Every structure is written in structure tokens, then in C-alpha cells.
């Protein structure tokens, strides 16, 4: 009897150990999802839209994602402060409709990424991956859509007429964007919450050993 109890306790302990190990693994997925959102925020420092001149192999004017967010939040598209706004004033002068759209989308995507980051953070702190994974997938979807929109709008500046008015139709000049990088990364970032969701379904907490019900004696 004592041996049976010992075996049961040992099995239970091993099950708990295995469960905890799997939970730790699940937390790694959450941590990865968190890291993905941080990296997405960092990607917004990259060149969001710029006029690249192949003759000089450099950008003549450019704006980063954060420059667009600054303009989108403040409504200031005419500032000469290149640190905050990049060359947004030039874009606004030659392609106003396009750059305001890009700035609005950039502000929206940054807001979504920050909320997503907080969701991932709370998921990690509270260790309740189930709900947070579904929310995280929804945010990843929204981010991907918004980043794709940013990239598309940035490239559409090619059709705004800026290459004629600003670059005198110099064939060496074209509008380019690195916003494709967060698009690819946002698609990749889907993997973490999806894998976490699949993995979490496989994890079940160790079951309590069933109590032996004493056999009731038949009444005579």
C-alpha cells in the first residue's frame, strides 16, 4: 500500500515537472511574440519613404516611420526640424495627399503595435496565454494589414508627380520604401501566437489521482 502511494506521488511529481516544463516553453513563445512587437517598433526607424537617386547612390529626401508618426500625431507637416520630421515638409509640398495618408497610417500602426506589445506583456506576466494568443493573432493581422498599407502608400508616391516637380523627371530618381521589412516581419510574427496556441492546446494540467471509492457492502 505504501509502495503504491509512493509510486503515485512520484508519477504526480513527474507529471507536474513535465507540465511546468511545457508551461515554461509556452512562456518562451510569449516572450518571442513580445520580442517581435519590439522589433516591429524598431523597424519604424527605417526609411518609410524616400527619393533614391541612383546617380549619387543616396537618398535625396527621406522620412522614417517615426517621422511620419510625429507628423501624423502633431499635424505638423511643414516643420524644418529634420530630427523629428525628416524631410516631410518637402513631401508635403509636392505630394500632400499621399504623405498625410502615410502619416495617418503610420500613427495607426504604431498605436496597434504598442497595444499589441502591452497585450503580449500582460500575457507573459499573467501567464494566461490562451486568451492573449487569440488577441495577439488579431493584432498581428491588423499590424500586417496596416504595414502593407503603409508600404503601398509609400510606393504610390511615385505616381504623385513629385518626381516631375522635385526631380525634374530625372530617370535616376524613384520613390523607395523599406516599409516592406516590417511587413515581412509582421507576417513572421504571426508564427509565435499561432504556435503558442497550438502548443497550449496540447498541454493539460496533471490530473489528480482518482480517489479509491470504498466498496459499499451489500445489506443483507
Amino acid at each position: 500500500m505504501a509502495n503504491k502511494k509512493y509510486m503515485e506521488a512520484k508519477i504526480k511529481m513527474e507529471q507536474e515537472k513535465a507540465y511546468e516544463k511545457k508551461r515554461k516553453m509556452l512562456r518562451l513563445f510569449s516572450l518571442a511574440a513580445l520580442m517581435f512587437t519590439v522589433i516591429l517598433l524598431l523597424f519604424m526607424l527605417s526609411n518609410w519613404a524616400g527619393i533614391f537617386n541612383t546617380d549619387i547612390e543616396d537618398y535625396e529626401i527621406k522620412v522614417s516611420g517615426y517621422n511620419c508618426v510625429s507628423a501624423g500625431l502633431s499635424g505638423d507637416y511643414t516643420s524644418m526640424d529634420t530630427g523629428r520630421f525628416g524631410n516631410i515638409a518637402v513631401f508635403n509640398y509636392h505630394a500632400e495627399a499621399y504623405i498625410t495618408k502615410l502619416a495617418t497610417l503610420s500613427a495607426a500602426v504604431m498605436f496597434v503595435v504598442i497595444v499589441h506589445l502591452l497585450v503580449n506583456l500582460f500575457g507573459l506576466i499573467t501567464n494566461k496565454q490562451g486568451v492573449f494568443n487569440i488577441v495577439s493573432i488579431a493584432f498581428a493581422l491588423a499590424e500586417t494589414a496596416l504595414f502593407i498599407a503603409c508600404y503601398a502608400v509609400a510606393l504610390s508616391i511615385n505616381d504623385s508627380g513629385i518626381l516631375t516637380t522635385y526631380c525634374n523627371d530625372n530617370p535616376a530618381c524613384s520613390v523607395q520604401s523599406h516599409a516592406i521589412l516590417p511587413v515581412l516581419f509582421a507576417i513572421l510574427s504571426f508564427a509565435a501566437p499561432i504556435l503558442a496556441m497550438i502548443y497550449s492546446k496540447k498541454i493539460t494540467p496533471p490530473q489528480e489521482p482518482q480517489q479509491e471509492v470504498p466498496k459499499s457492502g451489500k445489506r443483507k
Partner: protein
Amino acid sequence: MKKLLVALLLLCVCVTAFACGGKDVVLTEETFFYGMLTIQMYPDEYVGKKISFDCFTYRLTDTDGNEYLCGVRKCSAGYGCKCGKDSIIGFILEYDGEIPEPKNQSVDTNDKTWIHVEGKLATADVTELEIFAYDENGQIDTSWREYVVFCTFAVSSLSRIEDASGLAYYVTK
């Protein structure tokens, strides 16, 4: 974790704080070209703001023979452009006192009449001037016309710069 949350909040505050800008405009060596370009594009935004900068004096004559005394720097034809086409960027100066006469105007040298000026845009209206271009030898070519756009600057104070060694007559982005 609290630290992470605080860092995130700070990030949001920083981005929002970027919206707040000063009123006075000081054009430095780094900001001269883009600052001038921005003022020319959006003069309405800068009328009434105190602006200060260093420049050299330049007497601009349009194709009708009208003369304008300006404070300028030499620059490439477009911001960020290194296409070899040069131009000048600056203001037509309005001043009650005496504006020093230009020196070595058409020569590529830093030995110019340098001044430091403070003042405001007189008006948001820009003046487009038709001018004769300089040829490769630095001579005026009357067969080649160019257009330059200038704002008019009401100078409130002007001082001569004796040592212009730290100032570039040719500015890029």
C-alpha cells in the same frame, strides 16, 4: 515588468513631445539649406517668427535690370541634389541701415561679405525673379534664363562677420 511599462509610456510621451516646437528659427550651418527651403515652401507658417542666420550679401539683377540686395548662400539646384546645377538660396533683404556691398560675387570662394542678420519675414508673398545664368566660365550668359524664388526679409539687426572660416558659402543638405 513595471520598468518595461514605464519605458513604453515614456516612448509614447517622447513621440507626443516631438509635436512641440520652438517659435524662433535659428538657421545654422546644418539647417540653413533645408530651413530656407522650408520657409520658401511655407512662408505663411513663418511670417511673424523671429529668424536669424549667417549669409553673404549678393546683388541679384533680374533680366529687366532691377536690382535686389540679398542675403544668400550658394547651393545645389535641389535639396539633397548633387546634380551639378548650382543656384543660390536666401532672402531679399529689407533694412533701414546700410547693407554691406557684396564681394567676389560670381567667384567660388569663401571670401565674401558675410553678415549675421535677425528679423522676420516681411510678407508671405514670394518674388519669382527671372535671371540670366552664369556659364561654365563664371560669365553671365544672356541666352540662358533661370528662375529663382525669394521671400523678402525685414532685417531688424545686422552685424558684419569678420571671421567666416567656420561658414560654408556652398551648402548641401
